[in-house]
């Protein structure tokens, strides 16, 4: 066995590592490499700055249910009146008339007074009952049983969560339960997750993973052919497909460590700056790992593709531009309609499945979080339109479930990885064959 290892090591010490090492050293001597890599770092740093800024902001506490208002002018906020069963719209009815009289509350008390309370999510066809009426305006004795159970599930003052047969999430709340959550806590959590997904999907898996190969991989073979230096490699007994493959490996030898560094920086920033009581959000290393993995896969496939385009045509980069536009369209589509079949004809559609699957695993409460944000969106009895919580919209935009149908996220991830590897292998095969039959001046 020792002999075998020795042979493999010695074998790799020859052609493969020679070209790989050479390619990596060659990149290091080019200014363009540094310009591209530093630009990528600047882009990610800027996105991180926006993220940190959002996390440092103070979000205004919004009275989502409007009960801090004193509609009838009797100094008692509507919420307090509702709690005591007096008429919030009549000046002549308020808890001050009780015996003993109840002093009016500070209206501030009726802002963010009923935060979300849930500790589990529905799975399969199970229906769960969650939620707790913190401010007591549902549980109050002045209400009848049917008023307390507006969702008709037999449990008073709760929220019923269920999944339909098609996997759609249902959020059915009794009135006045969890209706005025803590906006700041919600916004920070939602924006934190939306930022990781947005930066991960568009920043890493799209911008970084397409532009770095565009500038770095297109010339891998083409530049050597146009400058005439290709002869130094190709007059040696080595198959051209091997040269193609080892050059791409050399390119990955630069790009993958770079991606690891960028991801690590981002993971550390979001880990420390993210909301929550803990110092560092360790649980989110999983999503960053998936983003890194998706970006590595994307840079592999794009690298092979652009290197191939460079071999095919001297001005192959011109073909790469419409392709990049197509991939952008697919990236945006995958966030809105992840199950669209057209996504299967792209690279990024598959790469983003990896991120989506991981976000499903890392954040099992994601759907609940999004629906909760929308749950406060109502029109109240006075005709005021209440908006969804801050952060809900971006979170819903960037979050998508893996679009491969109803299967475990792990399986989705494995299928996507296999497909991406097949894409890379196919491009290696075509690129190698094309290069093999290419005349070199």
């Amino acid at each position, binding site marked *: 066995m020792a002999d075998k290892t020795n042979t493999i090591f010695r074998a790799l010490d020859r052609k493969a590592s*020679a070209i790989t090492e050479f390619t990596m*050293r060659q990149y290091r001597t080019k200014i363009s490499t540094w310009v591209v890599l530093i630009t990528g770092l600047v882009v990610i740093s800027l996105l991180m700055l926006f993220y940190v800024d959002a996390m440092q902001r103070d979000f205004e506490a919004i009275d989502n249910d409007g009960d801090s208002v004193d509609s009838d002018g009797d100094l008692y906020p509507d919420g307090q009146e509702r709690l005591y069963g007096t008429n919030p719209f009549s000046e002549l009815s308020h808890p001050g008339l009780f015996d003993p009289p109840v002093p009016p509350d500070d209206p501030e008390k009726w802002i963010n007074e009923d935060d979300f309370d849930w500790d589990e999510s529905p799975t399969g066809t199970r229906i769960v009952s969650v939620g707790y009426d913190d401010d007591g305006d549902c549980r109050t004795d002045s209400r009848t049983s049917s008023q307390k159970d507006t969702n008709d599930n037999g449990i008073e003052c709760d929220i019923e969560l269920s999944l339909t047969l098609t996997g759609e999430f249902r959020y059915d709340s009794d009135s006045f339960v969890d209706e005025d959550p803590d906006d700041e806590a919600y916004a920070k959590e939602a924006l934190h997750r939306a930022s990781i997904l947005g930066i991960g999907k568009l920043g890493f898996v799209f911008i970084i993973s397409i532009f770095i190969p565009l500038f770095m991989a297109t010339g891998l073979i083409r530049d050597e052919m146009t400058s005439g230096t290709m002869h130094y490699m190709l007059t*040696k007994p080595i*198959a051209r497909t091997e040269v193609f493959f080892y050059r791409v490996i050399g390119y990955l030898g630069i790009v993958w460590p770079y991606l690891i560094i960028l991801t690590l920086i981002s993971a550390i920033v979001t880990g420390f700056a993210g909301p929550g009581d803990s110092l560092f959000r360790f649980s989110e290393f999983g999503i960053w790992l998936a983003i890194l993995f998706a970006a590595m896969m994307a840079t592999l496939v794009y690298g092979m593709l652009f290197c191939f385009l460079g071999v095919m045509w001297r001005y192959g980069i011109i073909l790469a531009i419409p392709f990049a536009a197509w991939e952008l369209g697919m990236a945006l589509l995958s966030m809105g309609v992840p199950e669209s079949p057209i996504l299967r004809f792209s690279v990024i559609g598959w790469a983003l499945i990896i991120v989506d699957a991981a976000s499903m695993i890392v954040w099992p409460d994601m759907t609940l979080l999004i629906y909760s944000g929308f749950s406060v969106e109502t029109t109240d009895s006075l005709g005021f339109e209440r908006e969804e919580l801050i952060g809900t919209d971006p979170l819903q935009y960037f979050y998508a479930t893996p679009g491969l149908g109803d299967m475990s996220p792990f399986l989705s991830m494995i299928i996507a990885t296999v497909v991406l590897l097949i894409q890379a292998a196919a491009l290696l095969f075509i690129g190698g064959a094309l290069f093999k039959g290419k005349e070199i001046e």
Partner: protein
Amino acid sequence: MMPDFHQEGQAETQQWQPEQKAPVILLENVSKTYGKIHALTGITLALSGGVTGILGLNGAGKSTLFKILMGKLKPSSGQVRLFGTNPWKNPAPYSRVGFVPEGEKMYDWMTAHDFISTFARLNGLTRDEAKQEADRVLDFVGLLDVAHKQIGRFSKGMRQRTKIAHALVNDPELIILDEPLQGCDPLARTTIMNVIRELGRMGRTVIVSSHILTEIERITEQIVILHHGRLLALGNLHAIREKMDNIPHRIDIGCDSPKDLAKSVIDIDSVHGIIFQNPEALTVQTRNLGDFHSNLPSVIINGQHKVTSIDNPDDDLASILGYLTGGGGY
């Protein structure tokens, strides 16, 4: 298509063996066209052993011929065999071939030693073996003392020698050099010529191209002349010269008194005309160059003439081509 898992340098056809009796190079009726341009037309050539000079003006098709031999270009028609194997899409024979391309571009950021040892590993050498091999070939071309300097700081001659050293890795049996002397200073030229002659003495098959006759003449007598993509002549340079000796030649002689010299020179039988160009030179016309050159020294010594220069303007590639194509001069 399969990668070479053993990485031993045999590339695709691991069991590749050169055909024992095949010539090193065999071209049969090879043509190469680019659209309507004929770069090479009907080249048939077989070479084995020794140093061969490929002579031709710029654009005669020398580089195209080499690239076809090296499997970089596909011939439009005809057969190419390198050690009996078709080199197109088959890098197997390259383990026995060294190629010096004509391009000026090199990896300027590498040291000569780096450059050679890195690419030597493509012959299936390990890192350590490649370093030893780089030392050996750099020593052979006389660059061992500057081996660890960057190629970018090398002179033209040193760059050419680095390229030759690169081609000599793995001790190939066939070495093809495309214009190795171009742009070199006289000292570098001599060094490179010595290297090429030494390779010939070692029994290697060496093919070297040039567009300057005197360069080739100093290296080898066996020449191939290419002209407008056609094979014009093949064989010993002396034999070609002998034939040329029997056609009118001009010789320019610079001296202090052309008229005195003319009186002496007229006695040489092969002289059939004298032209006075200017007060310090005369042009002699002869039908037999060899005869004239053998008689001229005694004439000069006997007449005690002061000769400043002897120039043979017809003794260049252009006039050979002119003669071979039947035109007057080029």
